[in-house]
């Protein structure tokens, strides 16, 4: 199963990465095992987003920058409004990084 490393940049992914870094640098964990954990995280996070999350979001804003490179879209929005079921957030600028969902199903 293909996985995206995309979600490693999220809060949960960064926390895991920091933890693994600590344990590897402390000699508790081998780097190989740490990478296995990260790959498992990629899978588990993707699955959880598919199966555990049902909410929908709408995003509006001024598109400051767009970029499509290596099948990854990157948008930088300004004055963006992000509406979810939990409420609306407004930010001066937000970066959207999106991988091609078709790559996972191939």
């Amino acid at each position: 199963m293909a996985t995206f490393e995309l979600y490693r940049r999220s809060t949960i992914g960064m926390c895991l990465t920091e933890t693994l870094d600590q344990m590897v640098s402390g000699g508790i964990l081998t780097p190989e095992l740490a990478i296995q954990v990260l790959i498992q995280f990629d899978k588990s996070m993707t699955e959880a987003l598919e199966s555990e999350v049902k909410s929908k979001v709408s995003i509006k804003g001024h598109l400051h920058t767009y970029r499509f490179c290596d099948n990854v879209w990157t948008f930088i929005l300004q004055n963006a409004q992000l509406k979810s079921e939990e409420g609306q957030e407004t930010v001066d600028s937000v970066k959207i990084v999106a991988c091609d969902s078709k790559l996972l199903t191939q």
Partner: protein
Amino acid sequence: MASSTTSNVYIHVIEDVINKVRDEFNGGGGPGEGVLSELQGLWELKMMEAGAILGPIDRSASQKGAGGPITPNPVHDLNVPYEGTEEYETPTADLLFPPTPLQTPLPGTAQTPLPGMAQTPLPGTAQTPLTGSDSGSLYNIPTGGTPITPNEYVSPNDNVGVSEVKAGPGRPSPYMQPPSPWQNQRPPLDVNVAYVEGREESERGGPHQQTTQDFFVASGKRKRDNFPPQYQAGGYIPQQDGAGDNLSDEMKVVLDVIGQGGTSSSRIPQSDGPIPDPYDDVLSTPNIYNYQGGVVNEDYNIVNTPMPNEMLAATPAPVQNDVIDDDEDEPLNEDDDDDGDELDEGEDLNTTHLVLAQFDKVTRTKSRWKCTLKDGIMHINNKDILFNKATGEFDF
């Protein structure tokens, strides 16, 4: 911050990952279940610190797997950053604490404040390590301790001095009481030190300082009474012995001395207004102390060159100017720092608003972009929001 749904998904992911890598950890050559538990514990701790997981994790419902009895341990480790409970629940800690302050004054008179702090951590840290994974847990202590836990858990081991004192309320009385007695004893000790060094100083110095020496040699017994004259002439009392850690105490002593011997008009104005700054200067730069006490106006005019004591004439105004200068400098520096911080924070905030997702479709009509995203994680305004689908409409 995170919503409860986000938090639950995160917890689910953590457990899923842990359960699915369990075989690799427990298999041949693997580090074992303990390391896996530590991994989970650290991970969850960091998540709670980041606010991405809410509160303590109720593992009773979710923990159905084989690892059930084991995984709860890391949870406790999280909430009670490692050494916390063990340290003062175990009787050994109580046994270890009282002797420390008793021992400290004897060997380390010079370092009095530090040894107590330095020695106390040792028993605590020595107890902390749970398994062979010591370095990891030790490494984690400083980060883990403060944010989540209540005051009583504030990691007492690694933080020196100040935080140690702050942590006081939660600490057992046997540990708290000892420090105060020998802290109280310290000022007299410092005075003695100041005396001795003062003599040496006067011996080195010019003839006028000999008068100073004569002063307190003559009235040898009552040290405090001696101070004012010595202080007037030489003015070098505090700075000489002034190791950085004793500043406050020395200050107090000097203040007391000044208050008692405050008959001389020249001394009073200095002590009242600008005390902190001149003394700090004196303490930081050894050259100054010769003229600091007597001639205040020279302090800021010629900071780098020692003044001949003949020129000493006390005038309060210069000191005030000196202080004013400092005040002017400090606000400027603070403002500069704030500006820089604000800019940095702003940049950070801009980059931390992040949406990670997969795209199904991205289209554009003229300057109007539409995209459909799925399976995304948004980190907006320090909140994590997960979505299954998202639509975006952007104007370029």
